[in-house]
C-alpha cells in the first residue's frame, strides 16, 4: 500500500473545507461561555460545556477572585470596598455580567443574547 496518493490530498482538502465551513457557520450557536476581562482586554474564557460536573475554575485577577462552574460564574471575593461585584451573585444567562468597577475586572456570559443592549 502506498503512503500517499493523489486522492489523499483530496481527502485532506475536504476535511479542511468541512472544518472551515463549520467554523464560520458556527458562531451563531456558540452556547454558553464565560468571558473574563481586565481593563477591557479578554483575559480568560471558559466554556461551561467543557467543565466537568463538579469542576470549579478559579481566576485571580487584580485582586478579584472569580469562580466558574457548570452552573455559572460569580465573583467570590474582591479587594474593592463596595463589594457590588460579590453581591451580584451567580450569573449564568447569556448577556449577564458581573463587574468590579474599581478593579476594572468583569466576567460576562455570552451565547444567545436576544437584546442588543439593556437600559436601566
Amino acid at each position, binding site marked *: *500500500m502506498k503512503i500517499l496518493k493523489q486522492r489523499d490530498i483530496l481527502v485532506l482538502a475536504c476535511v*479542511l473545507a*468541512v472544518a472551515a465551513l463549520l467554523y464560520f457557520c458556527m458562531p451563531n*450557536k456558540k*452556547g454558553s461561555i464565560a468571558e473574563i476581562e481586565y481593563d477591557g482586554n479578554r483575559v480568560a474564557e471558559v466554556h461551561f*460545556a467543557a467543565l466537568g460536573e463538579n469542576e470549579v475554575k478559579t481566576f485571580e485577577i487584580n485582586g478579584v477572585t472569580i469562580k466558574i462552574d457548570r452552573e455559572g460564574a460569580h465573583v467570590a471575593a474582591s479587594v474593592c470596598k463596595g463589594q457590588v461585584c460579590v453581591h451580584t451573585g451567580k450569573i449564568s444567562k447569556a448577556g449577564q455580567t458581573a463587574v468590579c468597577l474599581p478593579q476594572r475586572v468583569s466576567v460576562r456570559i455570552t451565547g444567545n443574547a436576544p437584546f442588543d443592549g439593556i437600559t436601566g
Partner: protein
Amino acid sequence: MKKTQKITLNALLAALAVSISAAEGLLPAFAFMPPGAKPGLSNIVTMYASKTLSVYNALVIVVLKAFFALFTRSATAFCMSLAGGVISTLVTAYLLNRKNGRLGCIGIGVLGAAAHNTAQIAVAALITNSGIFYYLPFLLIASIVTGSITGSILHLTFSFTEKRSTE
C-alpha cells in the same frame, strides 16, 4: 499466519494499544482543544490489527482500551474511548481492506482520526450540551495532522513487517 501466531499477535497488539493510550493520558491539555484531546497514536495499532488480522480483532482491542479507560479514568472516558474507537476502526478497516483501495495510508489515517474525533464530540455533546460542538472545527484540523502522523507510522510498520514476512 498460524493460530498461535495470531493469538500472540493479538495479545501483543492489545497490550501495545493500551500502553500507548496510557502514556498519552499523561499529556496536558492543549489550547483550542477540549480537555482530553490526545494525538491518538494507539490508533496505529488498531489500524494495523484490522489489516493484518481482522476488523473483529481490532474491535476487541478497541473495547479493551475502553475498559482500561473505565478503570483508570471514568465512565465518561469509557464512553468517549469506545465511541471514537469503534467508529474510526470501522471506517479505517473498511478503507484498508478494500480490494481496489485508492487511498494511501495518510488519507486513511486522516479519515480515521476525523471519524474518531467527530464521534467523540457527538458523545460529549450528548453527555454535556451541544455547546461542545464549538471545538469540532479545531479537532478536524488537528485530525489532519494526527491522522497524517499515524498514517505515516502505519505505512512504515507495514513496510517493515512485509519485508520481514517474506523472509
